[in-house]
C-alpha cells in the first residue's frame, strides 16, 4: 500500500536530470531537457543541499529547487526561496509535495533562514492551495512587472 511514509526525500544529483525532465513533461506536456540541464547544473553549483528530489518505490516522483539568499529585495535576513516544485501527476495524493516542503524548510532553517518565500501565478490555483496546505500565507510583498 502506497503512503507518505514510503516517500524518501534526498538531495538531487546529476543523474536525476532525466527524471525531472520527465516529471516536467508529464505536468507541462513539453519535453525541455535543455532547460533542466542548465537549471539543475546551477543548483548543483550553488547549493545542492537545497535542491531535492522525492523517491517513491525507487523512482523519482517529485522535485523542489530552492536556495537561501540574503540582501535581496531589501530583505536583509537570510530567506529561503522555493523556486520550483514538481510532482509526478501519477503520484498525487501520496504527500510527495508535503514531504519535499518539510525537508526543504528544515534545510533552510539549518542554513539560518528565518522565513521562506515563493512566487505563484494567480491562475495556478492548485499550487496556491498546495503552499497554503504547508503553512504559506499571502505576503506583504507585491510582485510587480512590466513589458520592455
Amino acid at each position: 500500500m502506497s503512503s507518505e511514509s514510503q516517500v524518501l526525500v534526498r538531495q538531487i544529483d546529476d543523474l536525476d536530470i532525466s527524471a525531472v525532465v520527465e516529471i516536467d513533461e508529464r505536468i507541462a506536456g513539453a519535453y525541455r531537457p535543455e532547460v533542466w540541464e542548465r537549471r539543475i547544473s546551477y543548483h548543483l553549483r550553488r547549493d545542492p543541499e537545497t535542491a531535492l528530489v522525492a523517491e517513491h518505490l525507487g523512482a523519482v516522483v517529485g522535485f523542489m529547487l530552492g536556495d537561501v539568499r540574503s540582501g535581496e529585495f531589501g530583505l536583509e535576513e537570510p530567506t529561503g526561496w522555493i523556486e520550483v516544485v514538481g510532482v509526478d501527476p501519477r503520484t498525487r495524493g501520496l504527500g510527495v509535495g508535503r514531504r519535499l516542503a518539510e525537508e526543504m524548510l528544515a534545510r533552510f532553517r539549518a542554513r539560518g533562514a528565518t522565513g521562506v518565500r515563493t512566487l505563484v501565478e494567480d491562475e495556478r490555483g492548485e499550487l496556491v492551495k498546495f503552499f497554503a496546505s504547508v503553512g504559506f500565507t499571502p505576503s506583504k510583498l507585491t510582485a510587480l512587472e512590466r513589458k520592455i
Partner: protein
Amino acid sequence: MTLRTETLPSKFHGAVINWREAYLPDYPLLMESWEKFFPTEPKFQLCAFRQMGMCTTIECGEHTGKPKHQKASEMAPETAHHLYGAIRAQASTEFGSIQQHRLTLARAQNEEEQFWILRMMAEELRHGYQMLHLLAEDDWTSVTSESTEQMIEGILSMNTGSHLLSAFNIDFDSFVDSVVFCGLIDRVGKYQLSMQKVSAYQPMAESMPKMLQEEAFHLAAGVVPMRRWVTRAAAGDVTITVSALQKTINKWLQRGLEMFGDERGGASNVKMGLKPLKNFEAQQQYRDEVGKLVRDLNLRHLRARCPNLTIGNAEKTLDRILAGEVLEGIGRDDLLRLPHADFFRRRGTPAFTMIGRDGERFDDVNGYAKHLAQNLPESYLANRDFAEYLDLLGQVVRGETTAEVASAKSPALRRVGGACPCSKAVRWVVDDPSPNLSSPALASA
C-alpha cells in the same frame, strides 16, 4: 550547520599558490570571468572548510559508538597508517586531475563547458589544499618519519605518472577525455568522499561535506556536456559522435573501477571505522550508477533522433533496441553501452585476463590488442600508457611475469622533460632552508 574556514601556515599556503601558477595558469581568467559565468554564486576561495556539528562517535566498524579520534596519535598504529595513506591518495588525486585537465582545457568547443571545467579545476585545488591541511595540522610521526614539509612537498611534486592512483597517471588526449573523466572518475571521488564522511577520524569527516557539495557540480560538469553531445551526435554533428564517446567511456570506466581497490579488499577499512563499504560493494554500486548514466544518455540521444517519440514510448523503444531490434533506423550499436567489468583491466581480480568489451574471452595478445584498438579512442592508442599496458600484457601471457607484478607496475609514465613545468612547480615561497628541501624539483624530474 556551521562551516569553519581555515588556512595552511603561510609557507605551505604559498607553496600551493606556486603550484597553482604552474598548473592552473588560467586561474586569473576564472576569477576575472566569474561574474559572467557564475553570477550570484559565491566566489571561489582557496582554503580548508570544516563542517561543525557532525557526529562525534564512530559510525561503523568494531569501535562503533566510541568517540571519534581527534588526533592521529589517538589511533591504533594500523588505523593511523591506513588513514595517512588515504589522505595522501586523496590529495594526489585532487592535484593530479588538474594536471590532466590543463592539457585539454583550451580544446573545449563551448565556452560555458570550458569555464565549468576551469571552475572544477579550482575546486579540485581546494580539495587538495583541504587534504594538505589535514596533514599539516596533525602530528603524523607515529606513521611516517617525514616532516610536514616533506609530506607536502612529496604530494606537490607528484606529476602525471607518479601519482598514487592509476587513473591520474594517464594523460588526456582530448576535451572528450576531460568531460568523460568528470562524469566517471569524479563519480568515484564522490563515493570515496561519501565513505570518508563517516570516518572515525573527526577532522577527515568534517572535511568532507563541503568537498561533496562541490563534487556534485563536478559530476554535472561531465554529465551535462555528455547529454548535450549525444544530442548533437543525433543531429549528425561530426565533431562529436556516439562512437567517440563510447570509446572514451571504455578508456576511463575501467580505471574508475580500479580506483576502489582490489575487489577482494576493503574489509580492514570497514573494521577500523574508516569506511562503511568493502571495495567490491562500493565498486558494484558505482558501476550500477554509471549504467544509469549510460541509459539516460541513450534516452536523450534516442529522443533527439526520433522527435516523434513520446514520454510514453521512448523507454520501451530503447529497451527493444537494446534487446537487438532495429527501430527508427537505430540499432544497438548506435547507442552507448557499459563495457564488461573485466574488459581492459590491469588491477584487481580480472587484471590482464583479456576479456572483451562484451565479456568475450581472448586467447592471444594480438587478437586482444586489435579488439582494444577498435574499442578505445584512436588518440589513446599512440599514448605511452597503452603501449606499456600491451607490453605488460604480453609479459603476463608469456609467463614472464605475474598479473600481480604487472599490476604494481602500471600505469607508470615516466617524465623525461618536454613542456611539463613540474621542475619549477614546487618551490617554498618562504625562505626556510632545510637540508632535505634543498632541491625539491629533483624529486619529480
